[in-house]
Protein backbone atom coordinates (compact mmCIF):
# COMPACT_ATOMS: atom_id res chain seq x y z
CA UNK A 1 0.00 0.00 0.00
CA UNK A 2 0.95 3.61 -0.35
CA UNK A 3 0.62 6.41 2.20
CA UNK A 4 1.38 10.09 1.89
CA UNK A 5 3.82 11.45 4.49
CA UNK A 6 3.75 15.15 5.33
CA UNK A 7 6.38 16.61 7.64
CA UNK A 8 6.94 19.99 9.24
CA UNK A 9 9.64 22.23 10.72
CA UNK A 10 12.69 20.41 12.14
CA UNK A 11 11.36 17.00 11.10
CA UNK A 12 10.81 18.21 7.52
CA UNK A 13 14.36 19.57 7.35
CA UNK A 14 15.90 16.33 8.70
CA UNK A 15 13.91 14.22 6.24
CA UNK A 16 14.80 16.53 3.38
CA UNK A 17 11.22 16.67 2.12
CA UNK A 18 7.86 18.09 3.19
CA UNK A 19 5.72 15.45 1.49
CA UNK A 20 6.34 12.12 -0.13
CA UNK A 21 4.47 8.93 -1.09
CA UNK A 22 5.83 5.95 0.85
CA UNK A 23 5.33 2.31 -0.09
CA UNK A 24 4.56 0.02 2.89
CA UNK A 25 3.58 -3.62 3.36
CA UNK A 26 -0.14 -4.20 3.93
CA UNK A 27 -1.17 -3.80 7.60
CA UNK A 28 1.88 -1.67 8.44
CA UNK A 29 1.57 0.48 11.56
CA UNK A 30 2.55 4.07 12.34
CA UNK A 31 5.75 2.79 13.97
CA UNK A 32 6.56 0.68 10.89
CA UNK A 33 6.30 3.83 8.81
CA UNK A 34 8.64 5.69 11.16
CA UNK A 35 11.22 2.89 10.86
CA UNK A 36 10.88 2.90 7.07
CA UNK A 37 11.58 6.59 6.63
CA UNK A 38 13.71 7.06 9.76
CA UNK A 39 17.34 8.06 10.16
CA UNK A 40 19.45 8.20 13.36
CA UNK A 41 19.06 12.01 13.37
CA UNK A 42 15.30 11.69 13.07
CA UNK A 43 15.09 9.08 15.85
CA UNK A 44 16.29 11.67 18.35
CA UNK A 45 13.00 13.51 17.72
CA UNK A 46 10.73 10.45 17.92
CA UNK A 47 9.60 11.05 21.50
CA UNK A 48 8.65 14.70 20.93
CA UNK A 49 6.97 14.08 17.55
CA UNK A 50 3.23 13.49 17.45
CA UNK A 51 1.94 11.53 14.49
CA UNK A 52 -1.47 12.17 12.95
CA UNK A 53 -3.34 9.89 10.60
CA UNK A 54 -5.79 11.75 8.34
CA UNK A 55 -5.86 14.75 10.67
CA UNK A 56 -6.14 12.93 14.02
CA UNK A 57 -3.21 12.25 16.35
CA UNK A 58 -2.80 8.52 16.70
CA UNK A 59 -0.89 5.82 18.59
CA UNK A 60 2.32 4.15 17.30
CA UNK A 61 0.47 0.82 17.09
CA UNK A 62 -2.32 2.20 14.86
CA UNK A 63 -2.66 0.41 11.55
CA UNK A 64 -2.39 2.41 8.36
CA UNK A 65 -4.47 2.02 5.23
CA UNK A 66 -3.76 2.67 1.58
CA UNK A 67 -4.20 6.35 0.76
CA UNK A 68 -3.73 7.61 4.33
CA UNK A 69 -2.09 10.96 4.95
CA UNK A 70 0.35 10.64 7.86
CA UNK A 71 1.61 13.89 9.39
CA UNK A 72 4.78 14.16 11.49
CA UNK A 73 4.25 16.98 13.99
CA UNK A 74 7.08 18.37 16.13
CA UNK A 75 6.23 20.50 19.19
CA UNK A 76 4.39 23.61 18.03
CA UNK A 77 5.65 27.21 18.11
CA UNK A 78 2.82 29.45 16.97
CA UNK A 79 1.95 32.87 18.35
Amino acid at each position, binding site marked *: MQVRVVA*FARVRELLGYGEREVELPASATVEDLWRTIGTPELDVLRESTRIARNGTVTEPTAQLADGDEV*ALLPPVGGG
Partner: protein
Amino acid sequence: MTAPLIKLSRERIDCAALAEKVRTAACGAVITFAGVVRELSDDERTVNGLSYETYPAMALEEMHKIADEAQAKFGPCEIAIVHRFGDLAIGETSVAVVVAAPHRAPAFDACEYAIDELKARVEIWKKEHYVDGDATWRENAKAR
Protein backbone atom coordinates in the same frame (compact mmCIF):
# COMPACT_ATOMS: atom_id res chain seq x y z
CA MET B 1 -23.33 35.10 18.05
CA THR B 2 -21.92 34.70 14.60
CA ALA B 3 -19.54 31.93 13.61
CA PRO B 4 -15.92 32.55 14.69
CA LEU B 5 -13.64 34.07 12.05
CA ILE B 6 -10.74 31.60 11.82
CA LYS B 7 -8.00 32.09 9.29
CA LEU B 8 -4.42 31.31 8.32
CA SER B 9 -3.09 34.16 6.23
CA ARG B 10 -0.09 34.82 4.06
CA GLU B 11 -1.13 38.50 3.91
CA ARG B 12 -0.62 41.15 6.60
CA ILE B 13 -3.13 41.21 9.46
CA ASP B 14 -5.12 44.44 9.90
CA CYS B 15 -6.21 44.33 13.54
CA ALA B 16 -8.46 47.38 13.35
CA ALA B 17 -10.33 46.01 10.34
CA LEU B 18 -10.66 42.66 12.08
CA ALA B 19 -12.18 44.27 15.19
CA GLU B 20 -14.67 46.21 13.07
CA LYS B 21 -15.65 43.03 11.29
CA VAL B 22 -16.14 40.99 14.46
CA ARG B 23 -18.06 43.32 16.77
CA THR B 24 -21.84 43.60 16.81
CA ALA B 25 -24.31 46.01 18.42
CA ALA B 26 -24.50 43.64 21.42
CA CYS B 27 -20.80 44.09 22.24
CA GLY B 28 -19.75 46.68 24.84
CA ALA B 29 -16.15 45.44 24.94
CA VAL B 30 -13.73 44.67 22.14
CA ILE B 31 -10.36 43.17 23.10
CA THR B 32 -7.65 42.84 20.47
CA PHE B 33 -4.50 40.89 21.17
CA ALA B 34 -1.75 41.20 18.58
CA GLY B 35 1.36 39.04 18.73
CA VAL B 36 4.19 40.96 17.06
CA VAL B 37 7.61 39.87 15.79
CA ARG B 38 10.21 41.38 18.11
CA GLU B 39 13.88 41.99 17.56
CA LEU B 40 15.18 39.88 20.47
CA SER B 41 14.63 36.15 20.98
CA ASP B 42 13.93 34.71 24.45
CA ASP B 43 17.65 33.97 24.77
CA GLU B 44 18.41 37.55 23.67
CA ARG B 45 19.76 36.89 20.21
CA THR B 46 19.07 39.61 17.67
CA VAL B 47 16.39 38.45 15.26
CA ASN B 48 16.24 39.36 11.59
CA GLY B 49 12.79 37.88 10.98
CA LEU B 50 10.63 34.81 11.50
CA SER B 51 9.13 32.22 9.24
CA TYR B 52 6.02 30.28 10.17
CA GLU B 53 4.74 27.09 8.64
CA THR B 54 1.49 25.30 9.33
CA TYR B 55 -0.50 22.16 8.65
CA PRO B 56 -3.70 23.96 7.63
CA ALA B 57 -6.14 21.03 7.90
CA MET B 58 -5.33 20.37 11.56
CA ALA B 59 -4.49 23.96 12.53
CA LEU B 60 -7.84 25.37 11.36
CA GLU B 61 -9.79 22.61 13.12
CA GLU B 62 -7.91 23.24 16.38
CA MET B 63 -8.45 27.02 16.11
CA HIS B 64 -12.18 26.41 15.66
CA LYS B 65 -12.21 24.14 18.72
CA ILE B 66 -10.44 26.80 20.80
CA ALA B 67 -12.99 29.45 19.76
CA ASP B 68 -15.85 27.09 20.65
CA GLU B 69 -14.27 26.34 24.03
CA ALA B 70 -13.79 30.04 24.78
CA GLN B 71 -17.46 30.71 24.04
CA ALA B 72 -18.53 27.74 26.19
CA LYS B 73 -16.34 28.84 29.13
CA PHE B 74 -16.78 32.61 29.10
CA GLY B 75 -20.20 33.16 27.57
CA PRO B 76 -21.48 34.43 24.26
CA CYS B 77 -18.92 36.48 22.37
CA GLU B 78 -17.69 37.14 18.87
CA ILE B 79 -14.22 35.74 18.15
CA ALA B 80 -11.62 36.10 15.44
CA ILE B 81 -8.34 34.19 15.43
CA VAL B 82 -5.96 34.88 12.55
CA HIS B 83 -2.37 33.61 12.24
CA ARG B 84 0.20 34.45 9.60
CA PHE B 85 2.40 31.97 7.79
CA GLY B 86 5.42 32.54 5.55
CA ASP B 87 8.17 35.08 6.19
CA LEU B 88 7.64 37.96 8.63
CA ALA B 89 9.79 41.00 9.43
CA ILE B 90 10.32 42.70 12.81
CA GLY B 91 7.18 44.60 13.82
CA GLU B 92 4.73 42.57 11.77
CA THR B 93 1.72 41.02 13.46
CA SER B 94 2.06 37.23 13.50
CA VAL B 95 -1.22 36.50 15.26
CA ALA B 96 -4.38 38.40 16.18
CA VAL B 97 -7.13 37.37 18.56
CA VAL B 98 -10.17 39.63 18.73
CA VAL B 99 -12.96 39.00 21.21
CA ALA B 100 -16.06 41.17 21.36
CA ALA B 101 -18.51 40.56 24.22
CA PRO B 102 -21.21 42.44 26.11
CA HIS B 103 -18.77 43.23 28.98
CA ARG B 104 -15.02 43.45 29.38
CA ALA B 105 -14.29 40.68 31.91
CA PRO B 106 -15.39 37.76 29.73
CA ALA B 107 -13.81 39.41 26.68
CA PHE B 108 -10.39 39.64 28.41
CA ASP B 109 -10.74 36.06 29.71
CA ALA B 110 -11.76 34.58 26.37
CA CYS B 111 -8.98 36.45 24.57
CA GLU B 112 -6.31 35.22 27.00
CA TYR B 113 -7.66 31.67 26.84
CA ALA B 114 -7.60 31.66 23.05
CA ILE B 115 -4.00 32.89 22.67
CA ASP B 116 -2.70 30.59 25.44
CA GLU B 117 -4.38 27.54 23.89
CA LEU B 118 -3.26 28.50 20.38
CA LYS B 119 0.36 28.63 21.50
CA ALA B 120 0.07 25.23 23.18
CA ARG B 121 -2.05 23.33 20.67
CA VAL B 122 -2.24 24.67 17.13
CA GLU B 123 -0.13 23.09 14.37
CA ILE B 124 2.03 26.11 13.59
CA TRP B 125 5.84 26.17 13.73
CA LYS B 126 8.18 29.14 14.01
CA LYS B 127 11.75 29.51 12.81
CA GLU B 128 13.82 32.38 14.14
CA HIS B 129 16.37 33.84 11.76
CA TYR B 130 19.20 35.74 13.46
CA VAL B 131 21.31 38.59 12.13
CA ASP B 132 24.42 36.36 12.27
CA GLY B 133 22.85 34.08 9.62
CA ASP B 134 21.98 31.27 12.05
CA ALA B 135 18.38 30.02 12.42
CA THR B 136 16.49 27.75 14.80
CA TRP B 137 13.03 26.23 15.23
CA ARG B 138 11.53 27.63 18.41
CA GLU B 139 9.09 25.55 20.45
CA ASN B 140 6.56 27.10 22.81
CA ALA B 141 7.04 26.45 26.53
CA LYS B 142 3.78 24.52 26.90
CA ALA B 143 3.75 23.01 23.42
CA ARG B 144 2.31 19.54 23.22
